[in-house]
Every structure is written in C-alpha cells, then in structure tokens.
C-alpha cells in the first residue's frame, strides 16, 4: 500500500494557459509523487483513458477558460463509467464560487484558485488520496 502516489495533471480543452499546471506538476513531483502531465488540448475521453491506463490515484484538471463545468463533469462521468470512481478528481483555475456547490455534488475535490500555495496543494493531495484509500 506504500506505493508512490501517482497523479495525472491534465489541461482539458482549448485553453493554453499552462503556467499553473506546470507549477503544480513540478511541486507534486518534487514532493515525491509520480506525475504525468498530459500536455495541452486534451478531450475528456483522452484524460479518462490516460488516468485509467496510468492507474493514477488522482487527476488534477487545470482550466482557466471558463469551460470548467463541462470538463469536470465529463471527466468524472468518464471515470465512473470505467469503474475508476476511486480516483480523486481535483483542480485549479478560474472557478467562480457560484459553480463550486455543483462541483462538490459531482464529487470533485478541492479546486484551487489563483494565489494557492503549492505546499497546500501537495498536502491536500496526500491527505485526500489517503482518505480514499482508507475508505
């Protein structure tokens, strides 16, 4: 049970703003996790396929284009369909407070906004994955 945490950091859709995704990927990797970064322009199907194939513990979606509702929903649905509903889905980007309740309903974990501390993100992923493994 002590295998390294595996995290997929994904950029769904057309948005090319990848500073945050890359910074988070680097922070998680430096914290000892195995990080797979998808690169840009991924469809929800591609992200789900990568998550299943790489057998990850968590998927972090980075969306700054306003298309977050569409992509979070599609990725969560996709993972559920593939029986990978134990995978933690979390995220980061420009997500208005109004949209957060719906994301919570979908079972999406924390969504970090601008100004988030990378240490907090690392600690969160560790804790949330541990909780999922325990349950």
């Amino acid at each position, binding site marked *: 049970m002590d295998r390294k945490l595996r995290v997929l950091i994904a950029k769904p*859709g*057309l*948005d*090319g*703003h*990848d*500073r945050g995704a*890359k*910074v988070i*990927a*680097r*922070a998680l*990797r430096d914290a000892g996790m195995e*990080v797979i*970064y*998808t*690169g*840009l*322009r991924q*469809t929800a199907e591609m992200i789900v396929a990568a998550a299943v194939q790489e057998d990850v513990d968590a998927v972090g979606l980075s969306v700054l*284009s*306003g*298309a977050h*509702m*569409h*992509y979070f929903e599609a990725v969560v649905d996709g993972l559920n369909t593939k029986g990978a509903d134990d995978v933690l889905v979390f995220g980061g980007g*420009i997500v*208005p*407070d*109004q949209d957060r309740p719906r994301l919570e309903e979908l079972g999406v974990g924390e969504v970090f*906004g*601008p*100004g988030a*501390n*990378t*240490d907090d993100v690392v600690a969160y992923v560790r804790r949330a994955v541990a909780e999922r493994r325990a349950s």
Partner: protein
Amino acid sequence: MKPKRQWLAEEYAEATAQHPERDAPFETLSQIPVDPIYTPDDLEGFDLERDLGYPGSFPYTRGVRDSMYRGRPWTMRMFAGFGTAEQTNQRFKRLLNAGQTGLSTAFDLPTLMGYDSDHPMALGEVGKCGVAVASLADMEVLFDGIDPEQVTTSMTINSPANAIWAMYLAMAERRGADLGKVGGTIQNDILKEFIAQKEYIFPPAPSVKLVIDTFEWGPKHAPRFNFISVSGYHIREAGSNAVQELAFTLADGIHYVRKALERGLDIDEFAPRISFFFNVHNDFFEEIAKFRAARRIWARQMRDVFGARNERSWMLRTHAQTAGVSLTAQQPLVNLTRVAIQALAGVLGGTNSLHTDAYDEALALPTEEAATLALRTQQVIAEETGVPNTVDPLAGSYYLEWLTNEMERRTLDYFEQIDGLGGVEAAIDEGFFAREIGDASWKAQREVDDKRRLVVGVNAYVQDHPEVPIQLVDPSVVEVQQQRLARVRRERDAQEAESALAELRSAAQDGRNTMPAFMRCAHAMCTLGEQMDVLREVYGVYQEPVLI
C-alpha cells in the same frame, strides 16, 4: 564628493550596523540586485545624446513622439469580448460612450484555435473567454454601428489572424469604407504562441510564413493597419520575468524582420507598421525601464543592424496591459490598487496605448462595472495627476537610467544565447523558452509559498472578504451562434465559397501569398473553421513536446 563605493563602505555600513536593513530581497522581479542608492558613478560612460536623446528622435528612449502625452494622451483601449457578437457589440458601444478611444476584441477559444462554434472541440467553450466569430456574418454584427474609418480596432488573434483580418476588412469594404483609411491592429504574433500562450495550430515554419504574408500584403492594401503586435504580454503571463519578456519579444520581432527580408521585402515599407505589446507588472521602476530599454534596443537594431533608413522603421510603438497574473482572487478590490500603480508605470514608461485590468479578473470575465472602473483608473492618471504634462519625467534618475542600461545589457545577452541556438525557431524546437519560463515561474511561485516575497491578501494581511458580483455568460450563446452559422452555410453562394476555399488551398500549396485568397473567402462567407481546415490539411498541425 566621495565615490558611491566609499560612501557605502563607510557611512552606510556604519548606519546599517546600528539600524540593520529589513530582511527582504533587495532585487527586482527579474532578480537584478538593487543597491541602496544610485549615483552618477552608476552611469559611467553614459552618453546623453547616444543613450537618451530627445523624445521623438533616435534612439527613442524617451518616447516615440516629440510631444508625447502633451499632444494626445495614450489610447485607452480596453480589451473586451464575451458571449455573442450582439452582446460584445453592446459592450463596445458602452465603452466608447464612457470615453474609451479605441476598441480591442477578445475572441473565444474556438475562434482562437480556428474552430467553428459547432465543432466538437468547441463544446463548453463558445463565448466563454471572448466573443465567437466564425464568419463575416458574425463580424458584421460585432461592429454594427461602429465606423471602421473612425474607430481603430485591435484584434487579439494569432494562428487564424489572416482569416479574421480579412473578415474585418471585408466588413469595412461592404460598408463602403476606404481600406486606406481603416486603422487597427491584429496581434498576429505566432512565435509567442509557441513560446508562451500555446494557441498555435500549424507548425512554426508555415505559421511564420502566414505572418510574413501580412507583412507583404498589408502596407499595399491596408496601410493604416498594424499587421502585427509583437507580444511580450503572454510571455510574462506564462511566468517569465521582465528581462525575459523584453528579450524574447524583441528576439521574435527581429526574427520576423529577418524572414521578411528573406522574402525580399523592403524594410522601410513594412517596419513602420510593426507594433508591440508589453505587460506592466508590479515592479514599478523595472517596468518603466523595460519600456525605455525596449525602444532603444529596437531603434538600434533596426537602424544599425538592419540598415533601415525610414525613421518610422526605428520607432517601437507599443500597447501595454496591466498584469493579469498579478491579480488575486483574495480581497479582489485590492486589485484596483495594483492596477492603478501598474498603469502609472506604463504611462511613465511612455506606452502608446493601455488596457487596465478589471479587479475581478481573477474570478471571471469582468463585469461592466469593474471594466468601467478600470477605464476610470486611466482617466484619473490622464486628467488628475499631472503626470502627462511633461515627457518622460523620470529621465535622468540615476536608478532608472542604470536599470534601463541593465535591461538592455541583459537583453543583448539573451539575443546572443538565442542566436547561438540557431535563432528563435530553433530555440523553440529545442525547448529553450519553455525551460527558461518554467524555471522563472517556479522560482517566483516558491518565493511566494515560502513568504520570501509577500503578496497582500495571499500570504500576508490575509482576511476574509465579501463576495463580489461576477459576470456570467449566458448559456444560450451557443444556440445563437450555431443558428447564425447554419444560416450562413445555407444562404451563401455555395459554388463561390467552394471555389474561394480551393484558391486558398492552391495558394498555400504553391507558397503564394495567401491574403488575396483569405479576402475572397471572407467575402464568400467561408467559415473560419473551413479555412483553417484547408490549411490544416496543407500544413499539418503542431504538437509541442511535453516538458514540466
């Protein structure tokens, strides 16, 4: 008077032994170390005429016009776009009524990536971070009631720039406007897309070829249009520091000049219409120095390296925008203060036009109230502070002149590195820019995380704040957009549309200038997606190597 070094070693050392300096990073955001004071000792070899001169003359350190803001203030050009063409058209008109002096169009991601609003890749993105424009029909709605001969329009569009520009010009032609009088700017800077913003479609070589088509076509057919805005803004937003922003942007500009010369174009015909776009970030003096250094470096390159003889070829004219990346979601009203200070730096740097970010942009697209406040910030600087009353008021500041020199020196060092790699396109292939920017942004983030650099409301002076209202995009946008698209496809002359697309294909295949074909496609109501699909087939699509 004793030399600076001696004063620091004696008086200053003694004073700080008693009252130590704060434990803070005394360096600019680009990690240039900053001394306690600057004196003439820091400007050894500085030549007033060679390095500074008068405004409106070489090397333009002090500005590109003699009278600068005494003649005419900078153009207040607020970037706007969301939802349907109708909604953005209304926002444009209200901004013009509020005293804005130029327009700037934000397109949605499907448009930026060359997809029609009904393409599967457009799902969830139509009208979200800008307005959707899929054909001339959208363009006509977008600029309804706005005279293209009177109002200059800037369009932030890159990979599909030729097609969108053609739609804008076709719109103007159909209204009976004289293209000789229609002014504006298309961003059309593909190199910084590969370096930073990542909205590329085709591989670098054909992408640059499309840009040079506009260099060739523009001066002859739309002489008042800036056919490029070489942009550092996005390089900075992707996490670079100020020196990298300056160096990579000017290196991109030089790359385009070289490519245009390779095609046999006359430098003094195209260079006067090359414009620039820089970020204005938090480090006040470094930002001012950046603009001054940019003008001086460009002037020297154009005159002394490329042999341009037309004075207008030497002038770096630039737009500026306050730093979106510096805005915080925490205590968002504090962003008003950040934006005001950044805007002031842009003005003191002598920018020719300016966009001020709205305070709510770390949360969503700006509300109308937030966008208006941002415009008012510029109006306060223009009307109430006295800053525009004298040209380049900070010239002669030992610190600022030293910092301007330092930015220039470090930029030239980067030029050498990039040339050593075989130029900008080779450096892109090699991952040089991705690495440089990735390392800088990582370093900056760690400094904030470790509280070595404080950000008000984020890692210092933290407190809860009330929610602010945000702009929501009406989900019915997609339907309006898709209906118009369907009507366009149904009602246009199908044969002419097909034949225009065939002309585009053959121009691309044969390496001819594509602009005449794009103009024909625009008039024929070919959609953006159709045109970009033709080029995708001819040129292929680019995928970047994944680097963390």
